[in-house]
């Protein structure tokens, strides 16, 4: 039957992936199938947003990870041979997509940021970053299926339309998985979504200790913005929540103003702020790469410079 498939674990993922899927389906004159976890987006919601068919994943037994659904998804995919299968590039999505690709001997475009169907060649063309963000890799898939993962919030979610119809089918429960979840430690608090922030003050490794981040927060408050961070602060030191990590392995932001404090300006981080209107920085090393990647910046110690900036802002 072919078609475009989306596989979603949450409602937000389903809507965004349907939005991405609808970029392809009309051009390819094909249908959209939404494979969704029960309790995420409802079949009606998926159909209104462009799905022609909804396949409901069975509820998992306690302790079964999302990856347990793999054999069920594989079997359905083999039966209907979709052209493309879209997943969200979340931890579970990336793992499941890669494992499914191996089983189907399919190509996989990881962290795809642009997507189109090229009628002339009959192939799906995709873009992603390579070399830490120093390069843009353009991939073409002519063989089906191609599996694609999409970083959350890269595409517009699909809007609901009136009068749409579609079928719904429940999928069987998967066999038990070899990997078992023995404990879940939910995150205490989901932090702010910085992808829509107008102003971001980003703290880097130039801060000496966790308490000092208060200085960056003060500047963010003074500028009416949010706090962001480089990966060492969220990933290695755990001074700030992971959702605040900007860059290749974090989020892509597009503020009107980005202020980097004690950020060296490695490409993996700076690729995340390519959409910023104005980039400025404070770094004590005049040879730090961030200066060439900023509109303007101060060469100096952030502990001396930031209080002065705050003072000046008040006058």
């Amino acid at each position, binding site marked *: 039957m072919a078609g475009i498939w989306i596989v979603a674990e949450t409602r937000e993922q389903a809507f965004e992936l349907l939005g991405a899927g609808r970029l392809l389906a009309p051009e390819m004159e094909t249908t959209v199938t939404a494979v969704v976890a029960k309790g995420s987006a409802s079949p009606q919601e998926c159909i209104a947003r462009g799905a022609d068919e909804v396949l409901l994943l069975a509820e998992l037994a306690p302790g079964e990870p999302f990856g347990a659904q793999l054999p069920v998804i594989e079997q359905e995919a083999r039966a209907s041979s979709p052209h493309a299968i879209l997943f969200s590039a979340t931890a579970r999505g990336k793992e499941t997509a890669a494992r499914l690709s191996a089983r189907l001997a399919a190509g996989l475009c990881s962290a795809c940021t642009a997507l189109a169907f090229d009628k002339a060649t009959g192939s799906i063309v995709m873009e992603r970053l390579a070399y830490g963000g*120093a*390069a843009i890799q353009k991939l073409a898939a002519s063989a089906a299926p191609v599996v694609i993962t999409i970083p959350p919030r890269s595409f517009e979610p699909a809007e609901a339309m009136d009068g749409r119809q579609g079928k719904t089918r429940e999928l069987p429960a998967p066999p038990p998985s070899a990997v078992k979840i023995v404990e879940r430690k939910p995150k205490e608090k989901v932090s702010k979504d910085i992808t829509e922030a107008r102003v971001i003050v980003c703290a880097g490794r130039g801060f000496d200790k966790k308490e000092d981040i208060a200085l960056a927060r003060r500047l963010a408050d003074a500028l009416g913005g949010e706090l962001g961070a480089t990966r060492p602060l969220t990933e290695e030191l755990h001074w700030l929540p992971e959702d605040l990590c900007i860059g290749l392995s974090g989020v892509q932001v597009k503020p009107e103003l980005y202020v980097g404090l004690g950020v060296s300006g490695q490409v993996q981080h700076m690729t995340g702020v390519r959409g910023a*209107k104005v980039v400025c920085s404070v770094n004590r090393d005049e040879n730090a790469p961030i200066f060439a990647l*900023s509109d*303007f910046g101060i*060469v100096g110690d952030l502990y001396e410079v930031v209080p002065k900036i705050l003072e000046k802002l008040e006058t």
Partner: protein
Amino acid sequence: MPTIVACFKWVVDEVYIRRGAGGALDFSSVDYKIGEYDRNAIEEAVRQRDAGGGGSVIGVTVGTPESAKGVKDGLSRGMDQAFFVSDPSFKDLEPSQTAAILAEVIRSRIPQYDLIACGEGSSDLYAQQVGPRLAELLGIPCVCFVQKLSIEGGRLRAERRVEDGVEVVEAPLPALVTVLPDINTPRIPGVRDTLMAGKKPVITVKRDELTGTFEGALKTAAMTASSLERTGEKLAADSAGIARFVDSLRKSGVIK
């Protein structure tokens, strides 16, 4: 005593990539390195070996003959021996091809192993695919994005980081894990480590010693340099510099 396989890749250090004429990538002055996160994979393999009271760490890398330097670098990080799967055609392999090559080498040349450790992603492609693909091809359980790991009684216990928190999981061995950078701090090899590395066994596997066809599934239509450069005005940390900085902020229109 565990046998642990560590997969690592010798990659272009992206710091030295320049933007050439017409947006082409200029590799003329590049240097190479073992991918950042692959160093965590090697370190974790070594730690698990030592925690298991011995055993061995077998490194495996797929690359062009020039990657020989990477094999020695890997061995200086505590591995016991290495498989170097090398061919001039192994240059811009897709993750699907790399996984297929690794699977054949491991299946045919490493008869018994307890754990395979991969990095969270390679430093050049950062596709985050090779690990989970390899696990499927070998038909073993796979746990990705692991921040904490222990092995006991033929099982692994891992903390795996997901968007909504942490999942503590268990799986029977042999299994494959991909590790996050905060799982450990990779050692920096000393002179002695480098000298010792030269004495460790390296088994080179050539393309024609393998049976697979290793065809790619996707086509790279273009690889172009992205430009992040801006005007780059540098200001001093004196009162004039601060004044100009705040002025520029105001001019940007985002603050009053």
